[in-house]
């Protein structure tokens, strides 16, 4: 039997993860439903008019997804839970795929169904109590793609940091951004010999705008390609290494 990936073992690992996470999943969805229902009903009670708060769905979808991804490997860092997790007879790849699936594709699917059901429910409530017209909710699948790419960073953070992965990642991101901003400014200053950033005279820089445009195009294309096709696999691979090398 393949020691890296076996479909039967993977499905068993996935079932294991779903059963053990379903309670938290349901509690979180219940809490979101409660908050959104309150946001929907309160204006109606006060003013007699209300609309389903569909504009709040997207931020909630992203935020909850990132937090969920940041927590998914918590068990691996706990000595007792980690022992169960690491001695369960499935490969590191199967363990990663299972966690990846429940925090990305399955999460998107569950949230899509949840938002559709909630919109239907709230539209019904609004029609009965306030006589308002139904609000339409459209899920932007492009956003789901962006989410799946960006959540890979949170998944990696969950495997890497022992505690508070979400906050530590935000902090690490902030520090990195500061570092790169500082680094870019220094380079820019040295390259163009600029001493005063508030009074840059573009004409004085003697730039070849045609070549600059090509360079910027290439940079944008490179950044786009890296983001869409390389970033997520890179962080998935790093997370895999973290699982394979984890000791408890």
């Amino acid at each position, binding site marked *: 039997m393949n020691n890296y990936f076996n479909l039967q073992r993977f499905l*068993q690992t996935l079932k294991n993860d779903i059963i053990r996470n379903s309670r938290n999943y349901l509690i979180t969805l219940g809490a979101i439903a409660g908050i959104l229902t309150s946001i929907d009903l309160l204006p109606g009670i006060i003013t007699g008019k209300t609309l389903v708060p569909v504009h709040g769905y997207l931020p909630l979808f992203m935020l909850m997804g990132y937090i969920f991804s940041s927590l998914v490997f918590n068990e691996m860092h706990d000595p007792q839970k980690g022992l169960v997790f690491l001695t369960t007879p499935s490969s590191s790849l199967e363990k990663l795929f299972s966690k990846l699936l429940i925090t990305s594709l399955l999460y998107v699917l569950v949230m899509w169904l949840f938002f559709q059901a909630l919109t239907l429910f709230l539209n019904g409530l609004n029609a009965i109590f306030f006589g308002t017209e139904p609000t339409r909710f459209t899920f932007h699948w492009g956003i789901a793609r962006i989410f799946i790419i960006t959540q890979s960073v949170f998944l990696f953070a969950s495997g890497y940091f022992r505690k508070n992965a979400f906050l530590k990642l935000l902090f690490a991101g902030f520090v990195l951004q500061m570092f790169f901003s500082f680094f870019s400014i220094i380079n820019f200053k040295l390259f163009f010999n600029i001493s005063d950033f508030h009074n840059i005279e573009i004409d004085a820089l003697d730039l070849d705008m045609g070549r600059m445009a090509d360079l910027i195009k290439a940079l944008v294309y490179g950044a786009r390609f890296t983001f869409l096709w390389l970033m997520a696999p890179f962080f998935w691979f790093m997370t895999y290494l973290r699982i394979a090398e984890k000791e408890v």
Partner: protein
Amino acid sequence: MITIENLNFNYPKQSNLFNDLSLNIQAGSIHGLLGKNGSGKTTLLKIIAGLRFPNKGQCKAFGYETRYRSPEFMKELYFVPEEFYTPPVTMKQFVSIYSKFYPRFSTQQLFEYLKEFELPEDGKLSSFSYGMKKKFLISFGVATNCKILILDEPSNGLDIPSKSKLRRILASAISDDRSFVISTHQVRDIDQLIDPILIIEDGKVLFNHSLEDISKRLSVKAMDELPAEGVLHYEKTLGGYLVIQEKEDEESLAIDIETLFNAVINNKEKIREIFSDLDKN
């Protein structure tokens, strides 16, 4: 079954816990792993289970290097640690989640063990006491029928009747192709169950011999007076002394593991000398 060769291990910023430790664990026995506090018993068990990686040397189980936690190896190993975690599920859910990973898992055996331990067949694991959870995990581990069963302090937290039941279950479940490794300080709880006896000290295997070999080379005698020489270890009793000596005649009481442990720890050189012919083999 398990081969450890020239193993070195240390925790970060600490001196070596194991120095060139080599060990062979054969199938068909219940190995008793003994040692003082901090001698590395639990760490050794974790290395065998692939949860800790050696700095040097290797640990292999039926050809698989344990540190890679290959599923083909992990399905043949079950580890019941001293401090454990049980997920917030019912017993039946636990069995449904984890049993599928172990190809020879027997539900019938599990129910027999649960009955023996007087545990219910179902119930929320989170509502169980520490001892009940431990009995459930031991029952599950034995019922997996995996080749290596590791038990760290299995009798800790068990009530008095359960300790003899534990001995009965383990004795009935051992077979020629299975090996149990039990680490414990409560040696009286597993007396007459473990064979061979493995003692680790100062990062090495100090003693690794079967009860048969021990009984051929050491004798335990109850004496009124302490002999002038040849005493490896003695313990004061109500009527005199319990003395361990190198065997010279056939007369001997059954060897008590706690007394043997003290004899080995306090007379390392002499014991090594007595068992030297076996160590060479």
